[in-house]
């Protein structure tokens, strides 16, 4: 504890500890590796203290206290594992499970359910309630476009209600009825349809809120996860990409207090199907499929023959790919013009996360000196255009004349409109298959890591460029992400992913 933060000393399970003044006990304990079980408390939501799972014993206080609502005080003596606390947890568990259905084989939350985990850790007792006595509630409620509710499984922690009210800023959910009959519901005439609604699926500690998109697709224990960044907009929210059988199955937010806190928007959550579908699997020229070496030779021939070639960079490319493109021009094609920019029309941003610019790396592209409006450059009359990860015809069909009469080579991951119209298309890997970094509008650089094997013949953009350069007789040197990043940082140290990370110590 340093840097002017006032700290207090307290005793946690017999050991003297320090914590910042005013911190909630549940967080102060976690700071020292003591995990207090919880349902209703979530670091992104205001404390409420309704589930009673987090109770602890504090000396000189006659009753047990909820650690999620009690700030740590100087000299406090806290026990989180005393017999009295453990007994209380068992009782809370039993209470929560009174009407809970035995649904684990069906429930999508199995494997990441806090009821399962705490039951194994604290309870392990048979139920004293007869199966027939359980109160039944609706099982498959259509709560909104993304979310399906199973009211029987809900533990009434109200996280979802508080998320809508406090984070998304809309009153869409509420708890109706009392006691054993209480259940989550949308307000009459309303649905859970705010643009951040998917987050309630992640924060629901049990399987009451499930994702219509992911429901029953894969069991979570089969998923493999990688840390990644959302390509949806300039914010670049931190995400987890999860794959099974080399297909993306689900995207979840990753905690990053500097960028997106705990959330992502619904667009970002669903922005993955293009990684699985409609992929360009091999290079294709006018005469059909080409092997990678043939494609490199064909691209080199076209580039060599061109009088005024134009290279178009995109703010969807990683800093590493952008640097490789610059190297490519320097070493292989010094006479070519180079321009950067997106053809994607902006959308409406909001005050929560979404930014108008729908490209994840505009800032990085500008920092690397590649901005400059591809449309003007296209109007300036090049006879050949090399387009990388940019879909002019798909994103702005009315700008079709910009490409007419020009030879077009594209490096694309998908068979999009521009790729389909191009004379030569070379497959490249998506961000989910490669390593790289993007710099968001605030100048925060984050890295993404591969979670899939590249499909078909696709290579990273840098590898594809190196291949074409080699066919042109130039050597780009090693083009792995690490080497390129080191080169980027020599020139633009502000693009370092490690910069500013120590500020709050918990982001990646």
């Amino acid at each position, binding site marked *: 504890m340093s840097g002017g933060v006032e700290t207090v000393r307290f005793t946690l399970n017999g050991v003297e500890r320090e914590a910042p003044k005013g911190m909630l006990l549940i967080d102060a304990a976690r700071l020292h590796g003591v995990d207090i079980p919880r349902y209703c408390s979530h670091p992104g939501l205001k404390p409420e203290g309704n589930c009673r799972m987090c109770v602890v014993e504090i000396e000189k206080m006659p009753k047990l206290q909820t650690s999620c609502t009690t700030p740590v005080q100087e000299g406090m003596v806290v026990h989180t594992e005393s017999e009295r606390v453990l007994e209380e947890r068992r009782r809370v568990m039993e209470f929560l499970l009174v009407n809970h259905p035995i649904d684990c084989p*069906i429930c999508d939350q199995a494997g990441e359910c806090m009821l399962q985990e705490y039951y194994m850790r604290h309870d392990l007792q048979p139920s004293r309630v007869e199966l027939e006595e359980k109160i039944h509630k609706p099982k498959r409620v259509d709560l909104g476009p993304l979310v399906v509710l199973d009211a029987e499984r809900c533990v009434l922690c109200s996280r979802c209600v508080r998320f809508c009210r406090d984070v998304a800023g809309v009153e869409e959910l509420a708890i109706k009825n009392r006691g054993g009959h209480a259940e989550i519901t949308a307000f009459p005439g309303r649905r859970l349809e705010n643009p951040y609604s998917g987050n309630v699926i992640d924060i629901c500690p049990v399987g009451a809120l499930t994702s219509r998109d992911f429901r029953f697709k894969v069991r979570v224990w089969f998923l493999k996860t990688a840390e990644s960044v959302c390509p949806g907009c300039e914010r670049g929210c931190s995400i987890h990409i999860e794959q099974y059988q080399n297909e993306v199955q689900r995207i979840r937010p990753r905690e990053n207090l500097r960028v997106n806190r705990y959330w992502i928007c619904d667009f970002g959550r669903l922005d993955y199907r293009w990684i699985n579908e409609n992929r360009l699997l091999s290079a294709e020229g006018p005469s059909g499929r080409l092997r990678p070496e043939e494609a490199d030779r064909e691209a080199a021939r076209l580039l060599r023959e061109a009088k005024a070639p134009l290279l178009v960079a995109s703010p969807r490319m990683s800093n590493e790919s952008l640097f490789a493109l610059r190297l490519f021009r320097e070493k292989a094609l010094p006479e070519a013009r180079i321009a950067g920019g997106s053809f994607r029309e902006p959308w409406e941003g909001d005050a929560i996360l979404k930014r108008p610019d729908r490209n994840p790396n505009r800032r990085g592209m500008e920092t690397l000196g590649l901005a400059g409006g591809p449309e003007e450059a296209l109007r300036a009359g090049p006879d050949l255009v090399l387009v990388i990860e940019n879909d002019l015809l798909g994103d702005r069909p009315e700008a079709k004349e910009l490409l007419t009469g020009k030879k077009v080579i594209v490096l694309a991951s998908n068979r999009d409109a521009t790729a389909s119209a191009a004379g030569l298309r070379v497959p490249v890997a998506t961000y989910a298959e490669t390593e790289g970094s993007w710099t968001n509008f605030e100048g925060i650089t984050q890295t993404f890591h591969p979670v899939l094997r590249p499909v078909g013949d696709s290579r990273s953009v840098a590898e594809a460029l190196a291949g074409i350069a080699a066919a042109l007789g130039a050597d780009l040197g090693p083009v792995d992400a690490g080497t390129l990043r080191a080169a980027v940082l020599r020139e633009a140290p502000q693009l370092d992913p490690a910069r500013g990370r120590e500020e709050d110590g918990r982001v990646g």
Partner: protein
Amino acid sequence: MNAPERWYLIEVLRGMGVSLRHLVRNIFHQDEMPTLQYPEEKRILPERFRGRHRLMKREDGTPRCTACFCCQTACPADCISIEAGEREDGGEKVAVRFDINILRCVFCGFCVEACPCDAIRMDTGKYELADDRREKLIYDIDFLLNR
């Protein structure tokens, strides 16, 4: 190796002698012969013999399997593949595809142990699983439910 062993013909003759001894013995003591007249005669299997799998149905005839994937998770041979789907008649989940690749199965019974719904059993006592095409040895959900 000693000298007579090096002459393999001698060893062959000795081996044929062993066979002859058994043959003569079996001719005179047919009741003690260890072989069965398969397929007319079949061995009586213990009750817990792990035969070919079957999928169970509930009383109303719907499959018991809720596609929980526990069997697929437990299977060491990776021979079960399941696809889950939404059930139309109620809030539940059901397997829309359930394949067992019996060519890979090692008949360990882990799938049966793992199932929380008693939906898969190996109590059919069937062990004659030969077939003439590989595809026929990937048992699908219809086969497993009805045979």
